[in-house]
């Protein structure tokens, strides 16, 4: 990770930031292994540069963006809460660009309703993608509704804590959607496609009753195997302290995003 300049963005929090060492050593990134420590331990040979992101599908001007072009967008620092579907959370100072800005460049067609994302497949650099046991089907895929993708809170992140993204956090470019569970934040993106129908999403395909397409943080809708009412803030409270806090609807971003779901039954569309 090298230093990365960004201007302070419009989103800040009163919550204390999660220590950098926790943000970069406690990760879910199954392409590098299913253990929380696996991504930081076994992503050393991953090469995040050179890199291109192909943006295609229902757009007027499909384009492949080189990493340098992406870094040339105005970069902002955004301090966001991150709520994992596993009932833990962090506060992370991301650096990134609003996804809407990138989408503007390719001019989505009127028929485009959804945005599909794809992670790179490199078994030779990503041990979780190689061998007899592979926990998920690759490439990892995720998707958003177009209005969610264009929301000002939604960013493509290229860094955190003032530096380029470490491999274990999804280098060189990943999605951050702070009102949704962390697994929506697809990492090491190589392709973004605009589609008319809801795109397939990896965890939703793996266990549709546990992981919905929307995956909005919602304390009122439990995961079948655990409650989502509370969360454990990583790096706080320690071993004996009561570090459980209540989970907020839309992860605390309800004022900004609740209107996107007006009239929807969020228990059915979880």
């Amino acid at each position, binding site marked *: 990770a090298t230093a990365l300049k960004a201007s302070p963005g419009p989103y800040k929090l009163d919550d204390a930031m999660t220590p950098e060492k*926790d943000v970069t050593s406690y990760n879910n990134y199954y392409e590098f292994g*299913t253990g929380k420590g696996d991504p930081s331990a076994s992503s050393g040979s991953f090469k995040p540069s050179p890199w291109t992101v192909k943006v295609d599908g229902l757009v007027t001007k499909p384009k492949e963006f080189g990493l340098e072009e992406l870094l040339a967008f105005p970069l902002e620092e955004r301090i966001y809460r991150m709520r994992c579907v596993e009932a*833990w959370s962090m506060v992370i100072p991301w650096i990134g660009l609003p996804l809407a800005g990138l989408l503007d460049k390719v001019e989505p067609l009127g028929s485009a309703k959804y945005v599909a994302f794809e992670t790179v497949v490199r078994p030779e650099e990503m041990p979780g993608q190689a061998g007899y046991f592979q926990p998920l089907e690759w490439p990892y895929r995720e998707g958003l509704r177009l209005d969610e993708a264009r929301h000002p809170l939604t960013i493509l992140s290229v860094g955190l804590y003032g530096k380029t993204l470490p491999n274990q956090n999804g280098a060189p470019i990943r999605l951050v959607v702070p009102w949704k569970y962390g697994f929506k934040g697809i990492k090491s993106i190589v392709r973004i496609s605009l589609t008319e129908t809801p795109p397939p999403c990896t965890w939703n395909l793996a266990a549709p009753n546990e992981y919905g397409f929307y995956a909005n943080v919602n304390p009122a809708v439990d995961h079948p*195997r655990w409650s989502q009412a509370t969360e*454990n803030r990583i790096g706080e409270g320690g071993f004996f302290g009561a570090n*459980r806090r209540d989970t907020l609807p839309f992860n605390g971003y309800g004022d900004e995003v609740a209107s996107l779901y007006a009239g929807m039954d969020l228990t059915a569309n979880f």
Partner: protein
Amino acid sequence: MASLPTLPKRFHGPSVWVLYALGLCPAISAFYLGATGKLPGNAVKEFEHLLGLWALRFLVATLTITPIRDLIGINWLRYRRAVGLLAFYYVLMHFLAYMVLDQTLRIQPIIADIARRPFITIGMAAFAMLIPLAITSNNWSIRRLGQRWNKLHRLVYVIAAAGALHFAMAVKVVGPEQMFYLGLVALLVGWRAVRTRFLRWRRQQVVSGRPATEKAAG
């Protein structure tokens, strides 16, 4: 077949206490690391999961004592009680870590978890079944209960299966580690189904004068 050198009799008793001491080491070291902030990330979960994993390991270990005696002729029966009780202590600590450190004694969510989440229900059932086994793990109970003691302690097969299942159901993706424990428990419990026939067959081999692989044990 080569056999291990036998431990002199005077060391039998102390060796059991050594086993207890060694068996508790993983819990003590993890507790120390957790309490001093040296467990990475989600320290409470790490501690909780480690205790659960060791509980399962000790449960599996109790089930290996009989096949080891049947197949290799090494009799470690004197260690079985200690290994079984270590399994119980680890399950107890696993539960306490969940209740006190993880859920911070908020009783209502704990009860909801036990009632509503099948993997927690199964884990709790295994814990509940282990309690009578732990209470009767002493010479007095064995004398007192006679054959009923054997029957009661066959519950350990159900408990081990429940433990391996609890582990597999707790994770987001069932991986090699979970499959390993499920397979191991299936194999060890399965051995009980064929062992009488196997031992009889081997005795016949010896009686009829044909070379047996080894002397029938027990």
